[in-house]
């Protein structure tokens, strides 16, 4: 029943694990994507309603607004997730391009080797 919440939190935990412990930029970026996808799943589950209808008020719904409100899914989380997916695409695309550049400059994808600035 509350399965999707458990999965969402599992995804978040997996993403965090990837981000903190992996030693490869590509895997870290994948971890970032998984982490945010877990959050997206969590958000979308908040608005989910089994057998719900789309929250678009059309002609015949207007007469029965309270019935409509009882059956419609919550549209706000969907809007939020849509926005957040777009943002996340930007971040992942940008991160991957940086990973390409860092491979060109350093010849490695190991983030612990990217430490020339400290010297």
């Amino acid at each position, binding site marked *: 029943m509350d399965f999707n919440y458990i999965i969402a939190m599992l995804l978040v935990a997996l993403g965090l694990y990837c981000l903190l412990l992996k030693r490869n930029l590509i895997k870290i970026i994948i971890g970032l994507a998984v982490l945010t996808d877990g959050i997206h799943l969590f958000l979308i589950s908040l608005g989910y309603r089994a057998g719900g209808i789309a929250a678009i008020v059309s002609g015949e719904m207007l007469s029965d607004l309270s019935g409509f409100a009882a059956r419609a899914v919550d549209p*706000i989380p969907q809007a939020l997730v849509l926005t957040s997916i777009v943002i996340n695409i930007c971040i992942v695309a940008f991160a991957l391009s940086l*990973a390409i550049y860092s491979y060109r400059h350093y010849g490695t994808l190991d983030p612990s080797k990217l430490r020339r*600035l400290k010297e």
Partner: protein
Amino acid sequence: MIPHAPILAIVLPLFAAFLMPVVGILARRRGIKRAREWFAIAAVLVELVIVVSMLPVVWGEQILVYQLGGWQPPWGINLAIDGLNLFVAVIVAGISALVVIYSFVCMERDTGLDQYYTLLFLILAGMMGVALTGDIFNLYVFFEIMCISSYALVAFRRKWQSIEASIKYLIVSSLGTSFILLGIALLYGMVGSLNIAHLAQKLPLEPTSAIIVPLALFVTGFGIKIAMVPLHMWQPDAYQAAPSAVAALFSGATATIGIYAMVRVVYTLFGAFAIGIMLAALGLVTMVLGALMALTQRDLKRLLAYSCISQIGYVLLGIGLGTVLGVQGGLFHLFNNAIYKTMLFMIAGAIIYRVGTSNMDRLGGLWKNMPVTAMLFGVGALAISGVPPFNGFASKWTIYVAGIEAGQPVFTIIALIMSALTLAYFLKALNSIFLGQRPTHLKNVKETPLFMLFPIVLLAALCVIFGVLPQLGIDIVRPAQEALMNSGGYISAVLGGA
């Protein structure tokens, strides 16, 4: 006030950002030199005028609520502007204006300036959005706009330094922003609203144990952005590798936005004045560690970055104390920090422009070549160390007094010692850059170009003005402090007694 000023302040930089490449292309076709730069300066000055035009209304004890599309809050998105919002917006607009003017000369040797100005204006749009919005998800989106543009600007020159710094910054900071998103999701699940005022009204009814998780997520997320100490590792790299104009913008404006988001969420949204003492303690650690690390740096920009961490510690300490005087001192210090930290980064940029390096081991005796710059650096160094008669003294003094009044004399003593350390590392920097032996290859270095010197001189003048007339600074800060401490007024103004 200019009609529709609140939304114009966000939309104008957004449009300017995407017009920038068009202006660039047109100018190249017509053979007009520097059209893009002049367009950028004009846009940012208009932006400043728009923001400043809101000042009289907001200072007249009024909270501007601008409803987008005419939807009533909490259903529609609204921009809510009280003293604190506008205080931050004025800092951001002012610093951005000076940075754009400064970029005119500072960036002239770089290619791809269309993209540079586009990203700069996107950051400005993001910052304005965070500063003015009254909706928590909107705040997140604008925060992301600001963050993504700043990763790109750090990587702007695509050398190994910039790539390394940018990738560290991106990974740490996106972790922070995803924490913020998770926090927003939890809040929405609990309360079912995204309006900051509406959330602030409903949250006290929820059990404390449920509120603590999103609060922790928000503090961590914004803490990464302001480089609070356990989360600061990205910041020195990013500031060192970014172009100096960008570093100046980050230290003055972006850090201010981070602090704003932090206090708005912690104090207004959660009403969690109780965790102020934790913020103050973290601020103390931030201050000490930043100052100690700054002592050992050999690169001027890296030193300034660590000193930025240290100064943010003072702000957190003042705001965390939670008393009237403490918050005033903290916000005043935020204001002053934006002034002199931007100025010092601009001076570092001027040295790089003329000499080509900011490594202090390879500099020396430059006061003979750049007497005006050396003097301005001295002003900045004394101001940041809290030496009277400069502005740093006024705000630091307020924080010291607030610490004693709040019954935390230990905090005051540590802050005082750190102030001395600040003076120590800035004197070291001053000594190794402008005094001492001049290497022979630096004989022909010229004074900073006038156009570059202008914003620096302006900021130095502000340092002196607010140092000589601290009351003026307190008067500017007071509306912001009152707005921050009066979350009830904010809620009722936005929701209109609903």
